[in-house]
């Protein structure tokens, strides 16, 4: 990082757009965990979740697989709440990093306050981003192997889902161009990173929001990548899932909430990390990276870091490079964790229908002393969440 950044004006609204797989989960988690410290320092961070979720989906008229699109009033109420706050506000959602509709961007800027809004976006080196982006797609149902997915991203066009989904989030020129229609260039900041400085993003937030140094340093482990082996297991499960025609709801509940969760727990040293880029794609990645560095120079926006780090290192294609072939084995630990994850998700709750049966015998009241401690703890947590939500609704 070159020089320290000046804090944003005291009433600024900082909107972080991600995009996906650029360290957003870690920074969101840190912001969320320290939201009371932020509040003391005059920075408001929404309390509902670690990032904007339903609020953003309401604006985008879109929701992730298996979730319903919330009514647009969810966004309108939320934005009104932000406007009503006199202090600094920080908002973060990588979903907005993939906006392509200028009208939506315009609405965000207008609703949050054109005079207060600052936008932050991260440009992560493609050679770092690609493997982790692919595995993130696999967590959402992708069926293509890494190699096939790369072919679509670099040789395909927008008619192919992999191509569209990657470049929708990671074409900085397009993203910046749209926001710069609504905002002056000095209120748009690009942070460039090649992962060598793990504290870069947290430092940028600390400085822009005038927070104590080190407050937002990542705790580690947030949204860590799958191993190559686990990703291959999940990819095959995705294929089978699609072939069976099972529902999005089941995908969300049992694959995301079961298999993926299980795989995150079942890490084993015998599984290998995601492979680097296969040799055939390196020249193409180099080309796109050079174009991106030039684009960042042309935009005239604030740039944190040296854009040259976005260029991939020359010729590290290794002999025996296996990145074009998918792993053939997976650790028993990961596979067992995947299966247990499904059982966890399935046994956690009974389908709602079962609760609707007609009564015959008088219900028996369990004394509280016979309720397991974990159930009591869960109930307390549920009530706490409920309180937070009602508070947010009231304040909105």
């Amino acid at each position: 990082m070159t020089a320290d950044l000046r804090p944003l004006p005291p009433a600024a609204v900082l909107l972080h757009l991600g995009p996906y797989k650029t360290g957003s989960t870690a920074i969101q988690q840190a912001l969320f965990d320290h939201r009371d410290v932020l509040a003391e320092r005059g920075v408001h961070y929404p309390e509902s979740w670690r990032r904007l979720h339903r609020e953003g989906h309401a604006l985008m008229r879109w929701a992730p697989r298996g979730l319903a699109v919330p009514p647009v009033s969810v966004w309108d109420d939320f934005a009104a709440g932000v406007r009503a706050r006199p202090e600094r506000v920080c908002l973060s959602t990588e979903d907005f990093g993939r906006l392509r509709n200028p009208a939506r961007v315009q609405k965000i800027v207008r609703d949050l306050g054109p005079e207060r809004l600052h936008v932050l976006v991260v440009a992560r080196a493609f050679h770092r981003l690609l493997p982790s982006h692919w595995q993130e797609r696999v967590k959402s149902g992708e069926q293509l192997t890494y190699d096939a997915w790369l072919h679509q991203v670099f040789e395909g066009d927008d008619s192919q889902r992999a191509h569209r989904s990657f470049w929708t989030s990671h074409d900085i020129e397009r993203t910046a161009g749209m926001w710069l229609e609504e905002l002056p260039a000095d209120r748009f900041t690009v942070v460039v990173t090649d992962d060598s400085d793990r504290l870069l993003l947290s430092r940028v937030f600390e400085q822009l929001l005038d927070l104590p140094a080190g407050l937002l340093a990542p705790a580690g482990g947030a949204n860590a990548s799958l191993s190559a082996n686990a990703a291959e297991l999940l990819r095959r499960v995705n294929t089978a899932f699609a072939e069976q025609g099972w529902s999005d709801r089941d995908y969300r509940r049992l694959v995301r909430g079961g298999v993926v969760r299980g795989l995150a727990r079942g890490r084993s040293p015998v599984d290998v990390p995601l492979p680097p880029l296969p040799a055939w794609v390196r020249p193409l990645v180099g080309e796109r990276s050079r174009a991106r560095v030039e684009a960042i120079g042309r935009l005239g926006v604030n740039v944190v870091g040296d854009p040259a780090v976005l260029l991939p290192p020359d010729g590290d294609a290794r002999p025996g490079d296996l990145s074009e072939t998918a792993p053939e084995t997976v650790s028993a630990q990961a596979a067992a964790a995947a299966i247990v994850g499904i059982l966890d998700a399935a046994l956690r709750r009974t389908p709602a229908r079962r609760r609707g049966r007609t009564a015959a015998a008088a219900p028996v009241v369990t004394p509280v002393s016979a309720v397991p401690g974990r159930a009591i703890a869960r109930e307390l947590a549920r009530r706490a969440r409920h309180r937070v939500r009602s508070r947010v609704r009231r304040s909105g």
Partner: protein
Amino acid sequence: MLTEPGLLPDGAVLVHIGPYKTGTTAIQSSLHEHRAELAAAGVTYPGRYHRQMRPSWALLGRSRVGEAEVPVDEWDEMVAEVRAAPGRVVISSEDFSSARPVHVRRLVDDLGPDRVHVLIVARRLDKLLPSAWQERVKSVNETRTYDAWLREVLSAEREGAAARTFWHNHGIATLIDRWSGALPPERILVLVNDEADRRLQPSTFERLLGLPEGRLTPGPHTNTSLSMERIELCRQVNVAVEERGWIGSRRLNRPRRRMLAGLRSAPLQDHETLIPPLPAWTGPRLQELSDERARSLEESGVRVLGDPALLRATGDPQAADLEEPPASLPVEAAASAVEETLAAVIGRDRAESVAPRRPAQPAPAPDPLAGISGRALVRELVRRPAARARRTKGIAS
């Protein structure tokens, strides 16, 4: 009493009790497959399934984990079918090998004290042990590694659940003893399995039942072994199931069955290993126990088909120690296990949501925590470890 398997008397009821992992699935599948030919030869194989599992469970008061016991009617129905059958009858269920004396007595009384002949298959220990461990991992949530399980089963004390179960089902003297309480020795048949002769069991059944030689060709079902890699996956799932306190949950039965089906469905890969030979440390104990089995059979006075000497096994002093369980398995097998587990869960949820409303179900218990203040709940939580500590102290003093 060393004998050749001769034709059983007309009206005989041959009760094949396994035990487990002695080739029962193969012979049952063959008997089921050839029902019509059996009937033509005057032999009844009761029921409609490949073995008489449910009637045997009804007799033994057994059920699938967490499910209701099989109604005893199902045993009575089979008994009625056997009694009404002319000619010879054969029934087969390896679960009879775990029958306690009271069940043995009832079985014999119900099927006809003068008609029943029991057939026990004795298998060499070094062949039996690997299959028995694997079956436990697949069916009864065994969490021990192969090595740990072997150490318990082969220990001199024979203590611990693994050892007790194994020897209850597989101890030759024990089995003969249990059936001797209800049957004369000449109607207890022990077939010594010849690991090298795949036709031995079918041909024995053919001769006992008066079927043309070669009639009992293999049926469609076999209980094939899984590779060590795939068993290790099951074992790790078992560990998690135990940690979560899910043992006994009926809701695990279907997912577990489907998971195993998934594991079986993916073809064996070159890099996979089958269950290894017994390690050298088992040698002396193996020899001792095998000799004991052979001797007790020779001295038992029951009808022995085959040579008890085949039961004698000497360990291989050069055999390698067992390694740690394999760390990885083919991703194809893992994926198919995951897919089948998903299918089981999704299928069950669907079945439950479309099931007709059952009347007379008790209402769900009201939420015991509703209406209790958060503060009271916290107090209750805080009270507990203290109460536990007090109880523990009470026991110690």
